[in-house]
Structure formats: structure tokens, C-alpha cells
């Protein structure tokens, strides 16, 4: 099993550009999450999903969108990139909402 995979690993965007961060898990987990991690800070939840077709906002959803059309995939969309979105983005999944989460390797995004 590959676990949770994320692409790309690194990306540089210009202000106003858009992109999609991909996340895929092969553990048949219902729950999936997107976090951002800023230097010296902990993890902040952007969006989460409890199953295909169901998503909800986390602590910092502004400027992002998600979709969950399949159990395996949970892409994160940035529509109009801003310097404040420079961060490392982690995708995670869990079998149930309160069980341990399994993390991907992260995507390092820089917006200039």
C-alpha cells in the first residue's frame, strides 16, 4: 500500500494563478483532511470530508475549495493564489473521525 500520496511536492505560483493539489489514499478511509503548516506553527485544518460527496470547512477555509467525488481522492483547489497561501500543505486520512490520521509527505507551495 502506498498510503497517502500527494502531488506535486513543490510548486511556485504567481499571485492570481490557480492550481489543484492532489491527494489520494489507498486505505479505503472514509475521512480525509487538508491542513496547512506555516513555519513555527502547528497544523491548521482547511477542509475535511467524511465520505464521498460530503465536505465541510475547517478552521481556515477562505481561498480554498475541495471536492470528494471518490473515496480515494480529495483534491484541494486554490482559485486566486495570494502570498498568504505560501505554506506546506498536508493531506491526511483516517478510518473514523476520531482514529489516528495517516499523513501524506506534503506539498510545499510558494506564491510570489
Amino acid at each position, binding site marked *: 500500500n502506498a498510503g497517502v500520496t500527494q502531488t506535486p511536492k513543490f510548486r511556485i505560483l504567481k499571485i492570481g494563478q490557480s492550481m489543484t493539489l492532489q491527494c489520494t489514499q489507498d486505505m479505503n478511509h472514509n475521512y480525509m483532511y487538508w491542513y496547512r503548516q506555516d513555519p513555527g506553527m502547528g*497544523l491548521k485544518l482547511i477542509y*475535511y470530508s467524511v465520505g464521498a460527496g460530503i465536505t465541510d470547512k475547517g478552521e481556515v477555509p477562505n481561498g480554498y475549495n475541495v471536492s470528494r467525488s471518490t473515496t480515494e481522492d480529495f483534491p484541494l483547489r486554490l482559485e486566486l493564489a495570494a502570498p498568504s497561501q505560501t505554506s506546506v500543505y498536508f493531506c*491526511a486520512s*483516517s478510518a473514523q*473521525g476520531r*482514529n489516528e490520521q*495517516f*499523513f501524506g*509527505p*506534503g506539498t510545499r507551495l510558494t506564491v510570489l
Partner: protein
Amino acid sequence: AQSVTQLDSQVPVFEEAPVELRCNYSSSVSVYLFWYVQYPNQGLQLLLKYLSGSTLVKGINGFEAEFNKSQTSFHLRKPSVHISDTAEYFCAVSASYGQNFVFGPGTRLSVLP
């Protein structure tokens, strides 16, 4: 809602010395507790977890943690650290129901030669 406090943002310690990383939580319902480790430029990896039963939990890489309900704490310990333990450590708590999973701000452990 749950919350997690990690009082020490940075902990320097010499190699082969013992270490304790502190974690306190608040919750009005029963909780599950977790410690994660993040090595430089990597994702988070589960070290250990407390779900129920024995309050002393053993994890990977020689780490252990003790759940203390009266003090609402879940401190992480290792009797002898190695250079390779240098990393960021995150405490997390989840509620007994719902999907509320909260991470602490992290503690950066630096093991010095």
C-alpha cells in the same frame, strides 16, 4: 470543544539524556490521545496512541507516554535520546464522538552531541 497545550516550544537535550515533552488537554468528554513526530521536510508519523485501558502507552523508537486523567496530561518520555530523535513532536486529541481532531502547536526537540 477540545484543546491541546504543549508548554515547551523548544527542548534542547544532550544525546543519551532522558527527555519529557509535555502535553495537556481540555475536554468535556472522553478522549483519544496521540503523539506524532515530524522529521525535517516530511509528513507526520504516528508515535503512539491512547484509546483506553492501560494508562502507560509504548510507541515506536523507544518512546512512551502516560495518560493522567486527573491532570489531563499525556506527557511523552524517552529514557535515552539519540541524534536521530531530533524532530518536531505534536500532541493531538480527538473526542469520543464526532470528527473533532485537534493538534497542539508542537515541540521542537533538538538532540545535541
